[in-house]
């Protein structure tokens, strides 16, 4: 299968630059018309946090959470705005308190073991290593890094025009022991 258009080969512009280019496009074109227009828009980090919450809500972990165990959602430092991460801490996941924390970048192996869900930044220096570590840990890995799902990450958020979409690597997800509800999977693009 040829590479997906939204998952380009390595010769492309680095992700951060490309995203910058995207945001530029939006602003450039809008500034000339004075009223920029989009139906219901939210800042990107809030939308990403919304996805993380939903992934946590509709997945099952092999371990059983007791009612006092927090659900630990980790975010790599610099990948999402701290205020958005703090906002997540006010939520609950299926009756368990959600504990959101920012873990230092680059992510260390110990952090993975302590997290139920880890959001890896798009410029994480050691994304492939993280994927390798997570094979042995029931930690759901999510990232907006390009090609993350193909590299073995569980869920990759990507941008389609001005919307966010996600793709799931079912094979590595299965080895992690975390299962995602079909309600989520049917909205996903599946990477084999």
């Amino acid at each position, binding site marked *: 299968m*040829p590479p997906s258009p939204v998952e380009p080969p390595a010769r492309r*512009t680095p992700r951060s630059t490309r995203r910058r280019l995207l945001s530029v496009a939006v602003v450039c074109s809008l*500034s000339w018309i004075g*009223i920029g227009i989009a139906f219901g*828009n939210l800042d990107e*980090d809030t939308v990403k946090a919304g996805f993380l919450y939903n992934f946590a809500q509709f997945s099952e972990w092999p371990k059983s959470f007791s009612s006092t165990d927090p659900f630990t959602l980790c975010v790599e430092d610099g990948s999402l705005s701290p205020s958005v991460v703090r906002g997540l801490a006010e939520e609950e996941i299926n009756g368990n308190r959600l504990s959101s924390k920012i873990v230092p970048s680059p992510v260390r192996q110990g952090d993975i073991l302590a997290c139920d869900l880890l959001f890896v930044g798009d410029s994480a220096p050691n994304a492939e290593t993280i994927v390798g570590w997570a094979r042995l840990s029931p930690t759901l890995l999510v990232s907006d890094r390009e090609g993350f799902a193909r590299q073995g990450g569980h869920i990759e958020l990507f941008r389609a025009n001005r*919307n966010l979409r996600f793709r799931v690597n079912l094979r590595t997800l299965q080895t992690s022991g975390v299962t995602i509800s079909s309600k989520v999977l049917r909205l996903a693009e599946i990477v084999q």
Partner: protein
Amino acid sequence: MGNKRNSIGAVVVLLAAGGFSPSAAAEDLNPISRMSLEYLMNVEVTTVSKQPESIQNAAASVHVLRREEIRRAGATTIPDALRLVPGVNVARINANSWAISIRGLRSRFGNKLLIMIDGRSVYSPLFSGIFWDRNNIPIDDIDRIEVVRGPGGTLWGANAVNGVINIITRHSGDTQGRTVEASVGTEERGSLMIRQGDTIGDTATYRLSAEADAYDDSRFADGSSADDAWENGQAHLRVDWVPTADDEVLFEAGINSVAGGGRYTAPLLTPPYSETRSGDVDRYGAYMLGQWARQINARNRLSLQGYVDHRYMDIDTPIAEETRTTSDLQVQHDFALRPDLDLTWGAGYRTTRYDVTADEFSFVVDPESDTFDVYNAFIQASKRLYDDRIELTVGAKIESNSISGTAIQPSARALWKVTPDHSVWTSVSQADRTPSIIETNMELRNAIIPPNTPQNPTSLPLAATITGDDDLGSEQVTAYEAGYRGRISRDLTVDLSGFVNRYEGLLLDTDTGTTRLNTDFGVPFLEVPLTINEQADGTVYGAEVSASWQASPNWQLRGGYSWVHEDLDAPPRSGGNSPSHQVSVQSLYDISPTWRFDTVLRYADELENTGTDAYVNLDARLSWSPTPDIELAITGRNLLFENYEEYGVERVANPQPLASQVERSLTATFTLKF
């Protein structure tokens, strides 16, 4: 983490600190736990939430047509895409000509809309309207089409009288890799689009697209050909470059050619005094555009734009050639004067040089060459009050042109966000339309009354000569508008707007001069000069409703209804070319992750002036996308009828092509990305 954090970090901090943007309000109401995946997938993400407002916060009647809707409607031309916008009245006259309007006063030579492609104005100053065939761009290169119903003169300047259509192409970072799209069909005979996108170093991306299309002839009711087959070839380059973290540069260039034709009724000075003849139309164009923007800080942005657009046209009926070069330079500065007060100001200069060679008695241009200049400056201020729930915007543009002098186009708008999900707005605004070259510098003779007839008892042919007047002033509209926009539930949004437009100085009426003998064209004839005057005026009022409903995670319905009523104090047949009622409903249905079935149902009321019947029609598209890189689609258009007319003859005086029938058609499209 580099650029992204630096640039939007500041905005996030502002948001967290109680902020000014719609996002802040939305967050309060939509705790993260209340946002479903379906909602999140449909919400549009913004990385910067400053001047660009969300549609929810625009104190104007605005509709955005997104790429997905255009693509899934199977549209192959911009007019077909515009059929999806509530309140935009689209009628196909023949295979390559359309009459399109917003809020009434429609004509083939409709002259009250401003159309832009990435900020480049593409209306023709020849008649202040659009040759839609020559402004096609590859449909898959379009990111979205933003339509503003109502005046936009304060920001956009002259010609934004009844509306603004802003076609925005995709960022080249969005179209990386190679794409080939090929179509074959019964009316759109064949189409091939190839596109290549790549990076240039670490800071720039580009896209090069080329497309060729061939469309079949349409037919008249008697089955004869309208001789309007046309071919369209084009190539476009777009480069997006980010030289520094704060600077953004866009460069575009393109060329296009259109070879088409049509059948026209042409006047003759000798018997039989009129004939229907076929005429070719050839158009070529080339343009270059550059934009540079510097983000000085999160709420302070300076932008500069310049373009040169060169066009050539050779038409057979009437026989004429036009060459036109437009150069345009604009500067715009958006900044926050205080936390609750945003200012936008700017200035611009445009110079247009045209040469028209007209070679027939039916069409005379004097002078044949001219240059006109337009200078403008504008300022707009937006103030937010009561925890940002009220937003007041006032502004004005002063524009001075060498045709009709200086005009001021002011507007005042108010928005009340009753709740984050419900807002109401109202506005009063004025906009001008500069007289076109036809209205100032031309003589048109489109009908000859034969000699020795009751209307012309003399022994010479008699022509009614529509004569331009270079003293004409601009047409002016004063528009009163109000609207409501609401999110009724997570899955249902509704938009209502109503308007009353009062027009003054419409260039629709003429003064009848003294009959004189004309011997300039070999055969002597009598002519009655009908000099265009500014006496006509009128009121047009109406309303638009649109709604979008996510009926289920895999089914979306979007629909619109518009009503328009024209009350003109103008000669008969000046109006009545717009349907009083129009409805469209688009259904986007995902049968499975790989199969999609989409339909568009359209209704347009009868046209009082042209005598065209009301119609209902249906377009449908079935697509299969086994991988994200491959798509096969079958599109059926106008499925309910073998053929029907969408338009007719407006006025004898207009040299428009004869209206032909729109036929049922099928098109198969194959798209491959690699």
